[in-house]
């Protein structure tokens, strides 16, 4: 630990313990932008979202088709592995349940695939039953590119690196496979309530 800087508190909104904060987290006022690579700028008329398995594309939507799907208002707390949390964030998105409706598969896991090289893996049961969405609006506005727009995955019960920005598809898998940060030592599952930040936690 470093030298204690007289009078320094940092930007945290509050130091108090909050029952809604998982262990080791603090609240922030803004919405920090984190990124492992360049922000993509795919024009909407080229954007597609696909459900695929390991060999075939099973279903695909254009932006227009995607936006015609039933969507929901969402209000959730989010927790980043870098320790900041935001409570009561509001989004609009299409439930993964909707996207997978009628898709025949034997998957146990999914791999979320984004523009560029970013991926993240999740157990299938963690993205069903109203736990996950593909979100296209945040705080009443279309989702900004820096926050993952036009659409990102939203899986608030896990650390926010699992809510892949710039998501373009879900690959249905019959096994678990580490995605980007999981390949670099981050926890394969990522439950903030058990503080599963790194592999082996």
């Amino acid at each position: 630990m470093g030298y204690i800087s007289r009078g320094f508190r940092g930007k945290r909104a509050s130091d108090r313990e909050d029952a809604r904060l998982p262990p080791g987290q603090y609240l922030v006022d803004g919405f920090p932008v984190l990124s492992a690579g360049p922000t993509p700028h795919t024009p909407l008329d080229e954007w597609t979202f696909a459900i695929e398995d390991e060999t075939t594309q099973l279903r695909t939507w254009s932006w227009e088709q995607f936006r015609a799907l039933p969507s929901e208002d969402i209000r959730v707390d989010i927790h980043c592995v870098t320790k900041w949390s935001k409570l009561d964030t509001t989004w609009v998105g299409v439930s993964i349940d909707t996207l997978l409706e009628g898709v025949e598969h034997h998957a146990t896991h999914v791999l979320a695939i984004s523009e560029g090289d970013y991926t993240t893996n999740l157990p299938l049961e963690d993205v069903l039953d109203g736990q996950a969405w593909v979100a296209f609006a945040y705080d009443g506005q279309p989702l900004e590119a820096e926050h993952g727009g036009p659409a990102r995955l939203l899986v608030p019960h896990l650390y926010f690196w699992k809510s892949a920005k710039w998501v373009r598809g879900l690959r249905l898998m019959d096994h678990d496979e580490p995605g980007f940060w999981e390949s670099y030592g981050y926890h394969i599952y990522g439950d903030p309530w058990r503080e599963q930040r790194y592999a082996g936690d």
Partner: protein
Amino acid sequence: MEGEALRLDGNAIAGTLGGMFVQDMTEARIACKGCGNVEPVGAEHAYVQAPGIVLRCSHCDEALLVMTRTAGRHRIWFPRSHWLEMGEPTDS
């Protein structure tokens, strides 16, 4: 925020690398496995606002280095770089 606001130069990770290597690393040259270009680390693109640090090729965006830190241990990965080359450490 417009465009590539979070994209920094490799010299943004000079301190982190400097804490691990005996010499300044921004002049070390790194070869990209994706496109074959060789550049000084300082000229490549660094993304430092993330769970880890990612250094990407300034020509083709492939991830040359990834650095993570857990429990006080730093690890460097070399996903898409062939080699890293530096001169003899000197006193300057």
